[in-house]
């Protein structure tokens, strides 16, 4: 089972954990990405996330499919938020369930690491005096 979702509404990590639970699962691994207050010593006021939604969903599906083919998982969920996020709010939730923990840990790490490399979603950090699209420039 895969559940891929992009929304401008608040994400619900507890609901994601609930949704990947499976009687045959011995472990659930969850990554929750949240908005941090400081970047390189500068106070962050908020983040703005923008997605190229059809392609982002398609890339997220590829990640889930690849994870399911590489590890014996029961379920995988990838939810990403867009729009304006305040400090401490949840930007991404990845949850996986598997019979044993090694597969769950590895698949969850693979999913977030690959999402950060391939999924067309962009984050703008808004500081007191400037706004920066993260990673845009070398």
């Amino acid at each position, binding site marked *: 089972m895969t559940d891929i979702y992009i929304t401008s509404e608040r994400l619900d990590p507890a609901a994601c954990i609930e949704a990947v639970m499976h009687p045959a699962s011995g472990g659930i691994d969850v990554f929750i990405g949240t908005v941090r207050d400081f970047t390189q010593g500068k106070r962050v006021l908020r983040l703005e996330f923008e997605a190229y939604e059809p392609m982002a969903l398609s890339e997220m599906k590829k990640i889930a499919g690849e994870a399911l083919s590489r590890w014996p998982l029961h379920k995988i969920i990838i939810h990403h938020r867009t729009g304006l996020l305040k400090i401490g709010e949840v930007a991404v939730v990845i949850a996986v369930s598997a019979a044993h923990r090694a597969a769950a840990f590895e698949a969850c790490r693979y999913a977030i690491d690959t999402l950060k490399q391939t999924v067309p979603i*962009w984050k703008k950090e808004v500081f007191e005096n400037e706004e920066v*699209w993260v990673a*845009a420039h070398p």
Partner: protein
Amino acid sequence: MTVNVLAFGIVKEIFSGSSVRISLPEGARAAELKAALEQAYPRLQQLASCLLAVNSEYAAPDKQIYERDEIALIPPVSGG
């Protein structure tokens, strides 16, 4: 032919809009489109990377472009 190129993130600022239209010879490939965009918008060359997506898939440089394609310019992604 004239193609429409969607912009996201910093590319929207470089284009001063959410898309641009650009003329290309018939049968042009992704690499030619990218070169034409970089010539029209030199600030694109300062980005850490910039990839073309055609119909929601990352496009290889030799991918042929058609007028009806949905084309997007993908600056460095930073989700998560």
